[in-house]
C-alpha cells in the first residue's frame, strides 16, 4: 500500500514536470522526456500491480467520485497542484484510460495550459519571439521545482483524464 501511494505521487509529480517542460525555453528535451516517461511507466506498473493484488481483498473506497471519461483534445488540461481535494482514490477505470485515451497531445499545443499559467502560450499563433530582451526571464525556479504537496495524489486524478498516454509522450517530437 505504501508503494502504491508512492507510485501515485511520483506519477503526479512526473506529469506536472512533463507539462512544465512543454513551456521550457529551447523546446521539449527528448532526453528528459524519455526519462520522465520511464519513471511514469514504472510508477504506473507498480500502481497497477498493487491494485491487482488488492482487488480480491480490498474494497473500493466509498468516497470515489465518478470520473468524467470524456476525453476532448481541445479541452484545457488541468494542471492543478492546488486543486481542492477531489476523490480520495483513483477510479479503477482511470488507469485504463491512460492506455485507451486517444487524445493526442501533439495537437493540443495551443490549448494546453497549466492552471496557474502566467506565461505566453507557445502555440503557432503566438509566434512573436519574446527572447529579444537580453536577459529573458525563464521559468521561476519555484514553478518547475515545486515539491508535490501531500494532496497532489488526488490532484493528479484530474491529469489522468486529460490527453496523456505514456506511449504518446515521445512521439510529440
Amino acid at each position, binding site marked *: 500500500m505504501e508503494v502504491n501511494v508512492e507510485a501515485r505521487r511520483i506519477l503526479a509529480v512526473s506529469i506536472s514536470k512533463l507539462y512544465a517542460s512543454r513551456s521550457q525555453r529551447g523546446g521539449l528535451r527528448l*532526453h528528459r522526456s*524519455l526519462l520522465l516517461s520511464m*519513471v511514469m511507466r514504472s510508477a504506473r506498473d507498480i500502481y497497477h500491480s498493487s491494485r491487482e493484488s488488492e482487488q480480491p481483498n480490498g474494497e473500493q473506497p466509498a468516497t470515489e467520485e465518478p470520473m468524467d471519461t470524456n476525453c476532448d483534445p481541445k479541452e484545457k488540461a488541468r494542471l492543478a497542484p492546488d486543486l481542492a481535494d477531489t476523490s480520495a482514490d483513483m477510479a479503477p477505470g482511470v488507469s485504463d484510460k491512460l492506455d485507451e485515451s486517444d487524445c493526442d497531445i501533439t495537437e493540443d499545443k495551443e490549448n494546453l495550459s497549466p492552471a496557474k499559467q502566467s506565461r505566453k502560450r507557445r502555440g503557432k499563433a503566438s509566434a512573436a519571439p519574446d527572447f529579444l530582451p537580453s536577459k529573458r526571464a525563464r521559468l521561476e525556479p519555484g514553478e518547475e521545482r515545486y515539491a508535490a504537496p501531500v494532496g497532489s495524489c488526488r490532484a493528479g486524478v484530474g491529469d489522468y483524464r486529460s490527453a496523456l498516454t505514456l506511449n504518446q509522450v515521445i512521439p510529440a517530437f
Partner: protein
Amino acid sequence: DAAPGGDMQWCFSQVKGAIDDDVAEADIISTVEFNHTGELLATGDKGGRVVIFQQEIENKSLPQFRSEYNVYSTFQSHEPEFDYLKSLEIEEKINKIRWLPQKNAAQFLLSTNDKTIKLWKISERDKRPDGYNLKEDDGRYKDPNSITSLRVPVLIPMDLMVEASPRRVFANAHTYHINSVSVNSDHETYLSADDLRVNLWHLEITDRSFNIVDIKPTNMEELTEVITAAEFHPHQCNTFVYSSSKGIIRLCDMRESALCDRHTKLFEEPEDPSNRSFFSEIISSISDVKFSHSGRYMMTRDYLSVKIWDLNMENRPVETYQVHEYLRSKLCSLYENDCIFDKFECCWNGNDSVVMTGSYNNFFRMFDRSQRRDVMLEASRENSKPMQVLKPRKVCAGGKRKKDEISVDSLDFNKKILHTAWHPQDNIIAVATTNNLYIFQDKVN
C-alpha cells in the same frame, strides 16, 4: 609530474565572476575547457558568450606562484534564435567548447549551442600600419593636390588587440539538441552529437555533414534510449565512442561501414538488482564520457558514480568511484526538485592518474587512481584568500555528525558544480560554480 591527488594540497588561486549572490541567468557558466597547452582557458555561458582567459608569462622572480589567468578575449558566440517552422526558441546557451590544436599564430575553437556549431578564430593584433600616402591618420582622404611625396607605410607597434571572428558556421544538421562536439586527432574532422544522431564534419566544409550514427527508431513510440555524449579517440582517428541514457557506451570504428549503427564494442555493467528503484534508469544515464590522454581507458559519469573502463574489457568497468553515495536514499526528493536530471561532467589530469568531478554544495571530488585515495573539496568565497589551502570536506550521511562534517540535509542543491577542467600539463584546475570560475593549483613547496 603530477603528485598524487590524495597527497596533494590544493590552494585557492583565483576566482572569476560576480560576487553577487543574485545570479543573472545569462552568467551561468555552461562549459569550461583548457586548450592543448593549458595557456588558454575558455568558458561558455547561458547568455551565449565565450570568455577566454590567458595565463600570463611566468613570473620568474616568484617561483612559488604560478602565473595568473587574466581575461584575454570575450565575445558573443551565439544569439537566441527562433525556429519559425516548429515555433520553438533556440537557446543561445553554449553547451560545449572544444579547442583545435594550434597550427599557426591564431587560436581556433569550436563552440556550440543546441543547434549550431561555430568555428571561431582568435587572433592577436599588436601592430598597425602607419603613414599612408593617400589617407590621414583618422582615415579621411587627403586632398590630392597636397600630396608631394611618396612613402611606404610602416608597421608600428600598438596595444595588443585580441579579435575573435567566426570563420565557419555549421548549421541545420541537427533536429535534436546537440550535447557534444569532439575534434578528431586528424585535426581535419570533428563530430557533433545530438539525442539521436552523430554527425561527422570537415572543418572546411559547412554545407555538408555525414551522419555516422542514427538511433532514431522508425516509430518514435519505441524509443528507449538516447545519445548523451560522444568523443573521438585521442589517437585513433577512426574510433569514437558514444554513451547513452541506459548507461551503455558503444565504441565504433568508422572503417567498418559508413553508418556506424553497429558498434564494434559495447560497454555495459549489469545492474545491481538490490539497487533497483523508480529512479534506477535515470541515475544510470551517462552524463559524460572522456577518453584518458593515453587512449587506453575511458571514464563515464552517471548520477552517483564515476567509472573507468578499459577499452579491452566490455563487461564491466575496471574502477568505480562513488561520488556522493549519501544521495542514494534521497533520490525521490532529488527527482522532485529536478536535481536528478543534473548532468555532471568529469575530467582526467594530465597523466591520467587522477580524475575529478563535481557535486552539490559547491563540492567537487578527486579520485587518485594509483594511490587509491580520494578527497572532497569546496569552491567557496569563504576559502578564497590567496594561496589558502583547501580543507577536505566530509558529508555525514546520517546518525551522529562529527565536527566539521556537514549533514546531507544541509547540502545546498542549488550550488552545483557541473563543469570542471584540468590543465593538460600542470596541476591547475578550473572549477565552475553557478556563475563563478575558481582556479586552484597544488601547493608548491
